[in-house]
């Protein structure tokens, strides 16, 4: 083939390929209700459950649900919010901190498009945010510990006050333990979380075990999330003190915690967020808003579930 023929051919191929690649776009319906879901976090299992539940409920309502994942890139999430605002979708659902995407939320507001939070954080630019109640989750595990100890015992707490959603959990546990005069907090630890939270918590717990050598001198470990609880469990096992009946509880019900609860060697309880319920509740809020109802609640809480040996099997099978 001569050079110029080849060049002409190449250019045509490029254009045709560009056009063909978009052929699929023609089939997207334009008339029905379209809802865009924007998240950088679709790779997280919790987000996947929420989005799938939202899609199922949305499709049952006859909506076109367009899920946009920016693979961890928050700046791209802002851009995609601007794009769907320009596109004129009927509603937008976000699963990202609203404070970080406020430029995109303003674009949606300027276009008159309602935005809903799916475990996103409360924000004046959202119609509402659907999430789990951090206070309630902490109350579940703190009362579990108090009841297990019959109101008497020495407790190690693992908290993390620099992060507001976890700080909330800590103050509730503080209040519940303070309400039982015979419960003593022997340490309130803020672990270093840069290693994921397990390793440093284990080291801190080993030091506490060394400082409290008598059997029965530690009654329980209350952790504001699962990783420190898992670290404490490892420390207790490494010290050979798993026979003392130290009660360990976490929050979040991550897969490792569920395994530990099922194994039944001290890690007794955690709290599972109902991600499927959150996704469905967001769809419900969108439907209510589109039907003209005014949603007064800036935050809608979906109940969480206490996971213990009694019900752990159903969470592991999920």
């Amino acid at each position, binding site marked *: 083939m001569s050079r110029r023929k080849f*060049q002409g051919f190449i250019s045509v191929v490029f254009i045709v390929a560009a056009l063909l690649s978009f052929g699929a776009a023609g089939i997207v319906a334009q008339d029905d209700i379209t809802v865009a879901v924007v998240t950088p976090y679709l790779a997280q299992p919790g987000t996947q459950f929420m989005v799938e539940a939202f899609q199922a409920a949305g499709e049952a309502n006859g909506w076109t649900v367009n899920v946009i994942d920016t693979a961890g890139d928050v*700046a791209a999430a802002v851009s995609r919010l601007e794009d769907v605002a320009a596109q004129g979708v009927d509603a937008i659902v976000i699963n990202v901190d609203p404070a970080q995407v406020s430029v995109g939320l303003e674009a949606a507001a300027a276009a008159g498009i309602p935005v809903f939070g799916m475990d996103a954080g409360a924000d004046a630019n959202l119609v509402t945010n659907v999430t789990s109640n951090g206070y309630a989750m902490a109350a579940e595990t703190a009362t579990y510990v108090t009841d297990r100890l019959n109101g008497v015992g020495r407790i190690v707490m693992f908290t993390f006050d620099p992060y507001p959603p976890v700080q909330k959990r800590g103050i509730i546990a503080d209040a519940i333990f303070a309400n039982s005069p015979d419960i003593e907090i022997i340490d309130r630890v803020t672990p270093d979380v840069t290693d994921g939270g397990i390793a440093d918590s284990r080291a801190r717990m080993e030091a506490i075990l060394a400082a409290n050598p008598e059997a029965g001198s530690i009654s329980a470990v209350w952790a504001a999330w699962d990783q420190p609880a898992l670290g404490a469990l490892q420390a207790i096992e490494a010290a050979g003190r798993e026979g003392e009946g130290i009660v360990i509880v976490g929050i979040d019900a991550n897969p490792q915690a569920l395994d530990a609860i099922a194994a039944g060697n001290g890690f007794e309880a955690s709290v599972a967020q109902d991600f499927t319920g959150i996704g469905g509740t967001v769809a419900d809020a969108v439907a209510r808003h589109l039907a003209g109802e005014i949603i007064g609640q800036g935050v809608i809480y979906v109940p969480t579930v206490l996971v213990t040996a009694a019900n752990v099997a159903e969470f592991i099978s999920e």
Partner: protein
Amino acid sequence: MNTTPSIPHPARQIGRILRRFGTLIGFFAIVLFFWSQRPDTFMTVRNWLNITQQISILGVVAFTMTVVMVMGDYDLSVGAMASLGGIAAALLFQQEMPVLTGIAVALLIGVAGGLLNGVLVSLVGITPFVATLGMLTVFSGVAFFISEGETIFGRAIPEQFSDFARGGIPLGTIGEQAVLLPNLTIVALLVLLAVWVLLEQTTFGRRLYAIGGNKEAARLGGVRLRLLRLIAFAVTGVGAAVAGLMLVSRLASANPTQGDGLMLDAIAAVFLGMTMSEEGEPHVLGTLVGVLILGVLRNGLTQLAIDSYVQQILTGAIIILAVTLSRLIRRAS
């Protein structure tokens, strides 16, 4: 390359136009396609201003990346430098330092990091790939270290700074809303102009192209290879830091990874732009077209509600297609 015969041959001229402007024609084809599919929302002033704002940050990184790529070098550390520059400024804001101090420190970090890359490449003689890959890891580690891995947001970022990304020069009103030429777009245009002048209108730029053409010949011809490479890497470094500051302003927050994604897109944009040069050299206006293609694809595909993973596949395939074709053309000629 200049084989134009004395008697113009229409077919040959068309071939030449296509060779030179095939990518640009492809870009317009993409625009026309989106326009036909979304006639009411794609080809609007507001959406185009929106696109220019979305690509402004990538643009700044890609334009300054062009400077090192002219010499045949790369800088893989630009994304990490954007993260580092941004988080350094945000940490100073958190300490209630003046906004200008934060900006100045971020820019200095950009220059210093770029010079460090330049020293490794030019004086120590490590290949740019290895040197800047190593520095990528270092910059990223420093960003994590100084921020302790945390995101800085909320009141820590002064409103004066985050309002910059929301503001712009008023162009008029459409309907009831004011239309602004976004400040971030203006920054990107200024950087574009500066890089264009530097590369196309100065002796410095011509020497960089000479190095890119043939390092040994350039050196024998009296070009101060080492110094020029040092300066070029410093320019790329400071561009990355500017982009990091723009990101902090746009997101009103900073975290130690938020610029990391810019590097691959910037290199892709420069490669797309290189397909528009007869010699296969990077030129900053070509890079602009590359950045526009990436930005328009993302905006248009999102408006068409194409699955985000399919979008990624399409974008990657189009980049590879364009660059492969351009390479085949040059091989054929």
